[in-house]
């Protein structure tokens, strides 16, 4: 149906972006497909030690899922930062990804988690890493007729943790001026054995900063390692000046947030280890 | 005679004087005499002025009595929020 429609199409899950675009005249879709009642799209399902999250699961439901929170707290806190309580009742992680905003709160956490998107296309289902979905502001690599049906968050080793931080001028009701997500795993000796660091709102798409990960792998996140992490993040930034922030601000604060997120992720990894 | 304090930017129209004397017993008489004696003040008076008499601000009241010993200060007409 979507593929057959010659005009603009929009897929509605929570509607918190699509409705605003329609009202502002930014989008005048010929076809809006509400998919939230399709079977499976509203479920959080355990799978291979991880969780498969249906595309129509709103943020508030993710926040209320104890198992998901325990496994991927950073991903959940990113999703929970999308909008107000009211928006949380509607907005979905998949919608946040497909909207294509470089500042999307859910996306850095998903990239740091190496999450995988399941797409139903004209030729059937396929899987794709989250990092490959965004193509630029308001654009994705999804083809017409593609529908994201779920996002898979994998199982993780013991002593793993993740965290997401964003900067906004207000405490709530804001778009990230800059954001950072860190996912890491500690060895038994407390040193970082694996890490992924992602930055939001500092480039046309979310950035996965390998240099930042390398800066902390093998360390115990001492001050020097954290400083190196921050420096690597700042170095990777390619932001713009706009009404929400400046190049200098985004570049500097990206490093600060990554450093703080890494510390939180480490603390979570320690307690995850204790629990296990 | 009443001594009227004129605000700074109006002094261009009162020969540089910050205080002018006019014969007036009320707000209205004072405005009429000022416009007559100092025609350069007329546009501002038409736009609107307030008058502080002994510290109380009157925005329009023509018949406000003015005593010779009163402190009389001309002010712009004010609008608020």
């Amino acid at each position, binding site marked *: 149906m979507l593929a057959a429609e010659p005009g603009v199409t929009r897929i509605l899950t929570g509607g918190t972006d699509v409705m605003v675009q329609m009202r502002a005249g930014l989008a005048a879709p010929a076809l809006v497909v509400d998919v939230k009642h399709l079977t499976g799209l509203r479920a959080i399902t355990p799978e291979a030690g991880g969780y498969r999250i249906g595309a129509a699961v709103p943020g508030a439901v993710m926040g209320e899922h104890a198992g998901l929170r325990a496994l991927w707290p950073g991903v959940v806190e990113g999703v929970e930062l999308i909008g107000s309580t009211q928006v949380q009742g509607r907005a979905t992680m998949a919608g946040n990804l497909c909207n294509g905003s470089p500042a999307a709160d859910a996306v850095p956490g998903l990239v740091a988690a190496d999450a995988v998107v399941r797409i139903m296309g004209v030729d059937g289902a396929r899987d794709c890493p989250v990092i490959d979905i965004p193509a630029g502001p308001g654009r994705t690599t999804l083809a017409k007729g593609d529908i994201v049906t779920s996002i898979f968050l994998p199982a993780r080793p013991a002593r793993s943790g993740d965290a997401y931080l964003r900067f906004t001028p207000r405490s709530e009701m804001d778009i990230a001026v800059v954001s950072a997500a860190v996912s890491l795993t500690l060895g038994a000796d407390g040193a970082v054995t694996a890490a992924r660091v992602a930055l939001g709102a500092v480039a046309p798409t979310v950035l996965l900063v390998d240099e930042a990960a390398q800066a902390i792998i093998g360390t115990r996140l001492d001050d020097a390692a954290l400083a190196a992490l921050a420096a690597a993040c700042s170095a990777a930034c390619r932001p713009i000046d706009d009404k929400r922030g400046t190049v200098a601000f985004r570049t500097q604060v990206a490093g600060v947030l990554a450093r703080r997120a890494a510390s939180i992720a480490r603390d979570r990894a320690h307690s995850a280890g204790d629990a296990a | 005679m009443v001594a009227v304090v004129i605000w700074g930017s109006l002094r261009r129209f009162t020969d540089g004087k910050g205080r002018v004397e006019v014969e007036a017993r009320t707000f209205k008489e004072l405005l009429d005499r000022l416009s007559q004696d100092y025609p350069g003040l007329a546009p501002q008076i038409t736009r609107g002025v307030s008058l502080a008499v002994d510290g*109380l601000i009157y925005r329009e009241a023509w018949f406000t009595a003015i005593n010779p010993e009163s402190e009389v200060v001309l002010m712009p007409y004010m609008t608020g929020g």
Partner: protein
Amino acid sequence: MPRDNNDTRVFKVVGTRPPRPDGIDKVTGRAMYGADVTAPGMLSAQILRSPHAHARIVAIDTAAAAALPGVKAIVTAADFMAQDDAGLDDILVNCMARDVVLYDGHAVAAVAATTPAIARAALKLIDVTYEALPHVTDVDAAMRPDAPVVQAGRANESVPAGMSPNVTHHCEFGHGDVDAGFAAADVIVERSFTTAATHQGYIEPHACLATFTGEDKADLWCCTQGQYNVRTVCAALMGMEASQLRVTASEIGGGFGGKTTVFIEPVALALSRKAGRPVKIVMSRDEVFRATGPTVSSSIDVRIGMTRDGRITAGEAVLRYSGGAFPCGTVDMGAQSAFAAYDMPAVRTLGWNALTNRPKEAAYRAPGAPMAIYAVESVVDELCQTLALDPLDVRLKNAARKGTLSSYGPTFDDIGLVATLEAAKAHPHYHAPLGPGQGRGLSAGFWFNFGGNTCVSLNINTDGTVGVTEGNPDIGGSRAAISQMAAEELGLPYEKIRTIVADTASLGHNDVTDGSRVTFAVGLATIKAAQDAVAKMCARAAAIWGIDPDAVEWVDGAAQPCGPNAGKFPPMSLAEIAAVSFQTGGPIAGHHEFNADGAGVSFGVHLVDVEVDRETGATKVLRYTVFQDAGKAVHPSYVEGQMQGGAVQGIGWALNEEYIYGEDGRLQNPGFLDYRIPVASDLPNIDTVILEIPNPGHPYGVRGVGETPIVPPLAALSNAVSRAIGLRLNRLPMSPPRILAALSGS
């Protein structure tokens, strides 16, 4: 007017906290606001707005829109008559651009159609040919002689020759020998400041419903702070007689000064006249930001001299304001109020207004004062730091008080500044310890307060209840306060009074709800109307008793003979007199109409603690206390509410709120997402301390309280942030990127 012995008067109702009369309607969703009414056959209208900051309108082709099924009327500037009065013509041109669009969002045409969707579709079919003109949105840039000219020939006689044509107005205030004052100073600090334009941010967008009956008679329902002003302006613009235009004020969803003028009402009237059907216009939030009336933006220089022991010797300020694309006199009030809190031997303030390609300024809470006082209070604070003096002691040492020659001319009568400063000094907040990265700031604030034209009717019902009819939309609980004053004066319980806001056909003129005037002026008129009714009731009792009316007095809600010589009769209550009113001469009512003066100025002092994250530039407000002189707080809860609400608006102005224009002169943040008014989680509780220094101009001592609270937060926050980070920011808002940039540059 002499006040009662209100130092000793014991109030029964005034000063209590009864439930507001409109409370139930507002918590159940029944209250009717601007957008909540419909009419049979009603059309919906939409307004086409300029995408350009400045452009000539070469042509407007509405043929395709007019041909769209469902479109019933289209208006452009050609449908309105130019006005002889320049002020009225500016209002008209602001509602509908004539020949030239002057700012992004300026209206160029409007369509009324059977549904909003059809009206929106019709807008897309209107073909406007623009010829872009150079634009300017910054006040300092606009004042340069070679600046793009927004409008030529708009300067008044106050402007000296040789200025940029954008300069429309100039003023100067002050007294004393400023040069000698600076020569006597041990330290002189001179700084330059800028403040962004901000918006009142009321949550209810402007809305109205206009219904023409025939060519010359109409009804208008709208959310406004002043239905009489709407009538005066709209009748003139429509070429109608005032009596034929009845304006009813809806419940109003916030105004703060922004609803003291008209934007959509004349457009709705014109469309309704043309279509012969009721027409409703509801602005979108985008339209509210782009095309209603934000504050002035400002650029200010302040210079203050002080002796080593903290005595101010002289002060000087130059204020450059822009009220947008039309002449604006708001700088007058900034220049008058800048130094109002100080007793100064020498002071001079110069004000300039310049045109820019921005929307026409409207009033916003103490218009003109917050930015001027921000600049002065920042320099005073820096002097205190430089001289290692306590900022409250310095303000007390230099505080204006009774007998002080004010910076704007008159000598102050009883004012509450010293008491307010002393209350702040004695408060635990001022002495609480601060943690690392934290700073405490304070600022004084001032507003004039107005009285104004007021008309009140008070009707004694035969069952002993009372109706008060007043003409000022209630934006903060004023109906409760007015009912309280009527109850107090009549000696009745509060519950026996019902106060309503009348339409323009039902009561004489009332000035708009502005200048913190309502509780003062309408309250005063209500007291006078009650006294009028009391005199009539005493006369009825006297007639019943067969004694002289002068021998009757009103005590505790009843007429009684005054003294044993007057005769011996049991008191007659209001209800008893009312019950026989038809037999004793007919209905009983009290009235009062006047132009109230004697409003009494108001001072406040705010204390704030903040914590600044030095790595991100984020400021968190930790603790906030407002001290303000209310004269007499009629309903203390709503006095506190004014103080808290004003403080939080000021916090927003200081930290995040601003109109952001792009290089193209278009507004970049016309929505609540990027125009960041404070949200609940940004704030601590806002503590309040009400002082009651009676206003000599009111029988209960009431002063207006609504506007002063927005004045101090700007400098209080700036001083707190400056002390927290050890650096001064001289630009508002102090958004995180600016704070971080300042820290990085140090």
